[in-house]
């Protein structure tokens, strides 16, 4: 990804002038390049493909990777929890365990002790009513969720997390 610092203004103007002058030539050059290819006389040169960088300003990437609130850790775990866990594990639903205070309990509903390893395994393998997340959440994703369950659980609809992008003030 091209991340550039701004030019000094005068230099920028000079460069812009050169580029503007060249822009027309660019169009002619493009037209000239195109005709042999259209005629089939030349094969366009191939170049190695490289993976595009992730633009941190594209919100869709943060959404896709659960990184709207944080890159990693408990806050990211909160976001994954909201999308993957909250719709069953919340204070209004009957039938799915409430996960508030999970780490202060002696055991999971399966009878296993409560610790990072058993919670991780539960997320990976699921249960009678719970999907197995092993193919969807990476080890890093699961670690972030576990961190949230251990240190910050659970979701509070009364206080949704702050948007780190929001800067405007009255």
């Amino acid at each position, binding site marked *: *990804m*091209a*991340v*550039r*610092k*701004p030019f000094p203004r005068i230099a920028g*103007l000079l*460069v*812009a002038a050169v*580029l*503007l*002058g060249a*822009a*027309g*030539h*660019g*169009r002619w*050059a*493009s037209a000239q390049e195109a005709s042999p290819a259209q005629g089939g006389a030349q094969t366009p040169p191939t*170049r190695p*493909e*490289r*993976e*595009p960088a*992730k*633009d941190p*300003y*594209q919100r*869709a*990437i943060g*959404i*896709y*990777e659960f990184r*709207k*609130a944080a890159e990693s850790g408990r806050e990211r775990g909160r*976001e994954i929890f*909201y999308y993957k866990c909250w*719709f*069953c594990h*919340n204070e*209004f*639903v009957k039938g799915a365990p409430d996960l508030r205070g999970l780490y202060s309990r002696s055991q999971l509903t399966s009878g296993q002790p409560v610790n990072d390893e058993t919670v991780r395994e539960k997320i990976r393998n*699921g249960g009678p*009513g719970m*999907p*197995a997340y092993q*193919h*969807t959440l990476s080890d890093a994703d699961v670690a972030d969720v576990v961190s949230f369950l251990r240190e910050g659980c659970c979701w509070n*609809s*009364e206080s*949704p*997390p*702050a*948007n780190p*992008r*929001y*800067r*405007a*003030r*009255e």
Partner: protein
Amino acid sequence: MPSRMGSRRIGVGMAAILILTLCWILSPLGAEAQSGHPLLGGPRGVVRSSKGAPLEGILVQLISQKTSIRTTVVSNQDGRYEFPKLETGAYTLRIARPREFHPSVQEGVEIAGPTQLADLVLERVTEGDLLPPYPAIAAQLTGAEWLLSLTGTGLEKRRFVVNCNWCHSYQQIFRNRYDEASWGKIIYRMVHGAGSPLININERGRFSEEEKGALVKWLATVRGPESKDPPFVTLPRPQGRATRVIITEYELPRLELATHDVWGDSKGYVWYTPHRSSYIGRLDPKTGAVKEYHVPVAPGALPGTHWVYVDKNDMVWLSENWAHNIVRFDPKTEEFSKVAWKVREPINSPMGGNYAIDAEGIIWKTRDSAVSGVDSRTGEQVKQFPTKKFRGTYGSALSHDGRYFGGGAWPADGVVLADTRTGEVIELDTSPSSGPARGAFDREGNLWSGGRGGVLVKSNPVQKRVWEYPLPTPYASLYQAMPDKNGEVWGGEQHGGRYFRFNPKTEQWTEYMLPEPYAHDRKSWVDNSTNPVTVWYVDHDGWIVRLQPLE
């Protein structure tokens, strides 16, 4: 015969013309960027490919480092773009949804007036037609592009579109991999859970066991543990008229609001509702600042508001879809008053979402097999006109003269119209899986409804008939439709990543590509005080969008 002074003047004039002509020839793009459009006059530049060709339909964006407001314009057929006048300061200059190109981001670009920006040169990721399935590209795909790319029969994709298209993006589904048993558990919850929070479970479900099983099998095939992302098919970039627009996006103070509706007040503020939390908000478009107001919580109910409407006295009306209240908020006193809404559904199941309020304070809705008018002060039903065919409507709208009520009958395929003076009810069928939902009346008395099957539906209570206009983009869906003062109709193409404008007179569609791939528009508001009109919606993913067409 001209005097010597006159000759000198002519000579100077000729020289000036020559210099101006030379300037025009030597830097044609810069000169042509002076569009003179009243909404423009800001920074400008050119986008071209690494091979030198001008690129049309590229979304060029400046993000204010002070306010986070994002302003996006679209390059034209010569690759030229021009922003509106922007506040002097530092910005991030980038391409939104570069998709087939490598991203381009420049931090700390100083903007002061009509700054001429250096050319943006974009390099394609691949020379091929289909895009390699890198995560950075996958994240930019619209739901429609996902469905164009994935394998499956027409039936499998149609089943998916008709049943899974309202509450979330397709990206939220296709970024996952689950085995068949896990997909089965997820689909069970989705099919049997009430509304978007899925709290209350209805054992009957939304569709048959057979349909459910077929959907699970398809998902386990295309998004199973071993599934690979296919090469990606993408939709065309905007051209011509669809490039002539300014799109402004505003950040909101909180995440995960599941934002739903917008409406503007007389002071120029834009109000929004959060579907699954307590904070409604009021945006000041000039500064991007939001003032939040906390809606008092009802015990045992998930917080959240759905419908917002600001009346002529600037009172803000809201519906609490899970707590079952109609809320009136006075911005002057900051007081909330609530009227309990009498519905059969248990708390945390939807009460009907959206409503239409008339000049007398009567709130209209079709529910439980009747078009009903309910007094907003007491919650008592004061009018009731039974329906014969449709049990309810999802949409609720009143004609401009207040006489006719109308609403799309989703989840059924039809429209209900009622004459509130005579009590006559008209129930009209629409095509299978068209699913008309929310909408509004135009000034000629037509009701326009967004159909979840990707159809724009017009109906008329006097002519007693419907007209259907399928969207040009495959697999896109509509939640709502909003006509403007000129009779043109506007709406977000959910899963299409674009916002449509439809001219009924010419039947011409214009599709504006949006800077993010969702277009999850549940209710648009048109500001008819501007020329051209200004269109607002809040994306369900959490930001407010303003569209200013240049024509």
